[in-house]
């Protein structure tokens, strides 16, 4: 459509045509200026700063690709990338499986109760990460928290959770998943509701059991939404920061020092602005790679 108009415009540049273009640009101007200022220019600056040694105060010192060479052999950085990947695997699988299970469960009940339970599961999503961190710091308190009281009923000894390097990352992933399960089950439920009932009835006549129904009808119908949920949760978990800052500050013993937290400390605590920009670009590349691999594995959600 627009190319056709363009061709016509080339030959008959009328006053009206110019006016129409101008009006469109005026309507777009505030947002375009904003996006350029907030995204495109900073992207350019980030690239330039990453080629410099700079503490934000003294003049920049151009060092070419040296920051990138440094990060390649920065074991702390790769440690934090590793932690981020472990976090992503725990978090994404937890959110994906549980929200799909809950959506299937919600889809099997009807009427007002479905809507009510959906709302209940969704409540944690609306609460800010900071308040959620408070709630779970309280719940997971090693000596007096409710979770340890609960475990005690089953004879499980008190755990130190966020104070234990082996448990802290899992606790943060669990808490974050807890807040998002309701959100993603709404997305899954919306798609499940669109699957025609006839499919299930036909398969039941052929003697299919519940598992077979899920495997051969439900799951294939979810392909697009699967890709959406996996990609969005993966990208989000690569950027986890708020809850780490509030709950553990990267500790204990660096066990939750995720990539964005490492970038943040380099930029705002050590004032290595050039280096942290290089790290951020590296994270971007890793994230991008992960998304591409995910798209390849899931074949972009196309149905065969």
């Amino acid at each position, binding site marked *: 459509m*627009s190319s056709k108009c363009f061709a016509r415009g080339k030959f008959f540049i009328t006053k009206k045509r110019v006016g129409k273009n101008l009006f469109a640009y005026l309507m777009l101007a505030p947002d375009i200026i904003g996006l350029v200022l907030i995204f495109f220019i900073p992207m350019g600056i980030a690239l330039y700063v990453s080629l410099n040694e700079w503490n934000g105060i003294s003049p920049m010192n151009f060092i070419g690709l040296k920051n990138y060479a440094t990060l390649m052999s920065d074991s702390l950085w790769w440690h934090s990338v590793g932690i981020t990947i472990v976090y992503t695997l725990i978090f994404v699988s937890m959110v994906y499986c549980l929200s799909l299970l809950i959506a299937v469960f919600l889809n099997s009940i009807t009427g007002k109760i479905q809507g009510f339970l959906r709302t209940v599961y969704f409540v944690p999503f609306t609460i800010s990460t900071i308040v959620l961190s408070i709630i779970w710091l309280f719940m997971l*308190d090693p000596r007096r928290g409710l979770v340890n009281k609960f475990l005690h009923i089953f004879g499980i000894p008190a755990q130190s959770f966020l104070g234990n390097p082996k448990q802290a990352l899992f606790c943060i992933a669990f808490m974050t998943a807890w807040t998002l399960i309701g959100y993603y089950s709404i997305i899954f439920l919306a798609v499940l509701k669109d699957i025609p009932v006839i499919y299930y009835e036909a398969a039941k006549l052929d003697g299919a059991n519940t598992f077979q129904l899920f495997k051969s009808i439900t799951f294939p119908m979810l392909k697009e939404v699967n890709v959406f949920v996996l990609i969005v949760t993966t990208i989000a978990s690569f950027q986890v920061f708020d809850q780490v800052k509030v709950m553990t500050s990267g500790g204990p013993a660096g066990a939750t020092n995720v990539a964005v937290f490492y970038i943040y400390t380099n930029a705002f605590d050590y004032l290595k602005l050039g280096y942290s920009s290089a790290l*951020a670009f590296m994270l971007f590349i890793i994230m991008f790679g992960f998304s591409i691999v995910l798209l390849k594995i899931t074949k972009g959600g196309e149905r065969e």
Partner: protein
Amino acid sequence: MKGNFKNKNGQILYCVKILGGIILGCFFLIPIYMLLVSSIKPTGEVFDLRFIPKTISLSGYSLILKQNFLRYFLNSLFISTTVTIVALAFHSMAGYALARLNFVGRNVVFILILSTLMIPFSVILVPLFILVKKFGWLNTFKGIIIPAIPHAYGIFLFRQFFLTIPKELEEAATIDGCSPFGIFIRIFLPLSKPIIITLAVAFFIANWNNYMWPMIVNQSQDKWVLQVALANYIGRTGTPWDAIMAGGVITIIPIVILFFILQRYIVEGIKMSGIK
């Protein structure tokens, strides 16, 4: 006889299912209930973990209000409201241009807008800080508000919505001598109430809950937002838990109210983000 038995079994199964659903619901609600109930316990009794407090005390609230929390509340309210209103105005204009106007370079502009969704915030964190510092916006509300406004997601959803409005309306208005801007204001905006409410709720909640950027931009205490103040409050040693909990309750009140009034729109918004 056999059919009746099966039916009864099915009913029992259904009840068990709903019971399971409610127990699962407790798993989501108990932690939040603990926040509410702990905020009205006296400092010494917070960790008795009773579901019904033995004694009710508002000392947490009075302590937190003495820490200037009302000020932070108003700061958060001002910032979130401003961002929401300005963003809705800008995004609806841009969405209208992309959906309904033919202009040179429309597809290129649209793709460039969408491409910003790919950029992670951590990459632009440092340069954005440098820019904001250059403009002299550190420790100002401007420094939080302006970077929060441009967002491809809002533009995209407005565009998708405007695409569904029938062309005949536009044509009729043009014949009646309505200008393109008049069509936008008098025809498109009134028709887009559902999307406006949905996005308004989404923007408000996102900005109210935002922590990282306000923390980095506003170091001076009187410009803090609630999330930053609360996070700072946790970090200090010796802070009584009932006061922290009271701060948490104050922080979530506006969102909980919004949630219960506009729940339908929130759910619609989520479905839109997932499917379209």
